[in-house]
């Protein structure tokens, strides 16, 4: 009896000791920097949007080849969580599909917003026998998602596509059920082109959808699209291409019907450059939806990296600034193979200015 109890106590003690001693051992490698210069290894932690995750992973592995002393961990936990984590300073950089709102921007003083890539959202559909390229305009898309246009052979759709024979079928509307940057971009576009949408629904990462079925994630919406004939939904361009889901050509501000491609999305971004604010200002009103330009696809958005202007750790700050510099220049060449839009020249030079603002105790961390 006594022996048994003694054994149990010893085991419990070992267990407790294990719990206690484990903690510092796990934390150490991420926070401390080896004092000797030649051996120093830095881990940069990031968190945020799921959309740029494949691109940031690619950067992380490619950059390791250039500078093996730097390790980049990125958790794709969603833009909102990324903003929360950078605000709480639990990560070195955040990522968000939407610019910080005015309120978020004032909550995190000294934040820099660096557009890292551009995403496009396509209006995808499942119409048996009809390939990609159905022509739609902004107000028609808004009316479909408001539930005002109920049938595929509605005169408003037919008049845009006189050459296509549309079936007399109900339109099934599919949207994202989870809060997402994709929804933000899409509703931002609808708010820009339809006053009706703006007043009834508005823009946000989650909105109060007047009609339709909610699928979780891009995979949920594309599941709805592929399984239900006569469905229409919105998904990321890359996702539609990889899954081979047909999508619509959208009428832009210049009145042209534009196929969503990496190039037409980049056009929209370069068209907006003259209106972009400085990297340390508020970007809350920045939007490249419904952009000007003959060949601009109207439903797209920058996706942003978020870092602090005043870095608190000299080595780490320098490493971070160098990585960002690389990412917005050489890193962009990995964009197109992963179906991301690479940044136009004008945005890169804007980012250069932003990254040069990063400093440690007033000393700039990068010279260019």
């Amino acid at each position, binding site marked *: 009896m*006594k022996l048994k109890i003694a054994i*149990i*106590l010893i085991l419990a003690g070992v267990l407790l000791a294990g719990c206690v001693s484990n903690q510092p051992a796990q934390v150490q490698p991420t926070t401390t920097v080896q004092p000797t210069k030649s051996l120093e290894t830095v881990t940069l932690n990031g968190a945020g949007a799921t959309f740029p995750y494949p691109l940031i992973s690619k950067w992380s592995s490619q950059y390791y080849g250039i500078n093996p002393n730097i390790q980049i961990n990125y958790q794709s936990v969603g833009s*909102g969580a990324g903003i929360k984590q950078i605000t709480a300073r639990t990560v070195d950089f955040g990522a968000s599909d939407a610019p910080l709102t005015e309120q978020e921007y004032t909550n995190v003083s000294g934040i820099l917003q660096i557009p890292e890539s551009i995403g496009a959202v396509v209006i995808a559909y499942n119409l048996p026998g009809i390939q990609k390229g159905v022509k739609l305009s902004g107000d028609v898309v808004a009316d479909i998602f408001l539930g005002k246009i109920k049938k595929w052979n509605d005169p408003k759709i037919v008049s845009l596509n006189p050459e296509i024979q549309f079936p007399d079928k109900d339109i099934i509307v599919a949207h994202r059920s989870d809060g997402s940057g994709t929804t933000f971009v899409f509703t931002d576009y609808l708010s820009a082109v339809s006053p009706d949408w703006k007043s009834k629904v508005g823009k946000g990462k*989650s909105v109060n959808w007047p009609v339709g*079925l909610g699928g979780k994630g891009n995979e949920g919406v594309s599941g709805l699209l592929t399984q239900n004939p006569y469905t229409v939904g919105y998904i990321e361009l890359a996702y539609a291409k990889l899954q081979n889901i047909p999508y619509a050509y959208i009428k832009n501000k210049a009145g042209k019907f534009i196929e969503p491609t990496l190039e037409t999305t980049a056009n929209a971004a370069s068209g907006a450059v003259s209106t972009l604010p400085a990297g340390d200002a508020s970007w809350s009103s920045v939007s490249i939806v419904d952009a000007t330009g003959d060949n601009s696809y109207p439903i797209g958005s920058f996706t942003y990296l978020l870092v602090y202007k005043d870095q608190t750790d000299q080595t780490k700050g320098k490493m971070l600034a160098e990585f960002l510099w690389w990412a917005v220049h050489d890193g962009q060449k990995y964009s197109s193979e992963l179906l991301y839009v690479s940044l136009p020249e004008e945005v890169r030079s804007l980012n250069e200015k932003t990254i040069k603002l990063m400093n440690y105790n007033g000393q700039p961390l990068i010279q260019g």
Partner: protein
Amino acid sequence: MNKSKWSFFSRRKLSGDLIFEGVVGLFAVFVLVIAFLLFRELFVESELSRNAFGFGFLTHSTWDPVSEVFGALPFIFGTVVSAFLALVIAVPFSLGIAIYLSELAPEKLRTPLSFIIELLAAIPSVIIGLWGIFILAPFIRDYLAPVLSTYLGFLPLFQGPMYGLSMLTGGVILAIMIIPITSSISKEALLTVPIQQREGALALGATGWETTRMAVLPYARSGIFGAVILGFGRAIGETMAVTMVIGNSPRISESLFAPSYTMASVIANEFVEATSKLYISSLIEIGLMLLLISIIVNIAARILVSKLLKVEGGGRA
């Protein structure tokens, strides 16, 4: 009751025993503390929403994150109806399984069958959800829904278009997920019925079915009811699989073919991207409501199950 045991220990003056008791007692208290902190956190963090919407939070049905108007009624409706639907489907199945395993199955089959049914409970819910999207939802849309609307279409329950993702699909998925727990606990309840009970009925000339119906089932009634309540609790809290197939549309519809939304689903869907304080607070208040419903259901189950154990003791003696 513990007096004799206690004096035994103190007579021996085993300080080791005292330390051991202290340590394990601490572990037990720890669980209580966590439960309390969880409840407190949900209560405190939902303050903003409770102040802004008051009781109307439970009765309003607009959920609009853009203009920050939040009412949880569609989610409460979706949770309760989908869990209830799951019970309607799962209880006959579970009872059948339990009766077969405890009364009819040959001894050799009992253990492997019980094992397989319990294995069903170990499948991760995201896997069940994916199966739901790709197999179950199209099956219900193409085969089950047309049959239901043809023969029962006069009921509002089975009217309207059916796109696969619906309250019905959610209910079926939940039913599949609660069958293991409901059937295995029902089986345990049936096994506690004393053999004399069956022998007596058979001796009076009852058939096998009559024995089960008149002598066995009434005896195990409270235990089976406890199993059903536990299944209900599981169905209320289930998140992933049901989110993937229920259609996520916060509207109250009388048709089971319409999409719906549950409390757990809206938290899973929207919490990550919720940034405004009122929005987060409202999601947390939904969590609080969910916790309250779960606690009530579980306490009810506990009371019923403990009643069952008393019956067992009496029956065996």
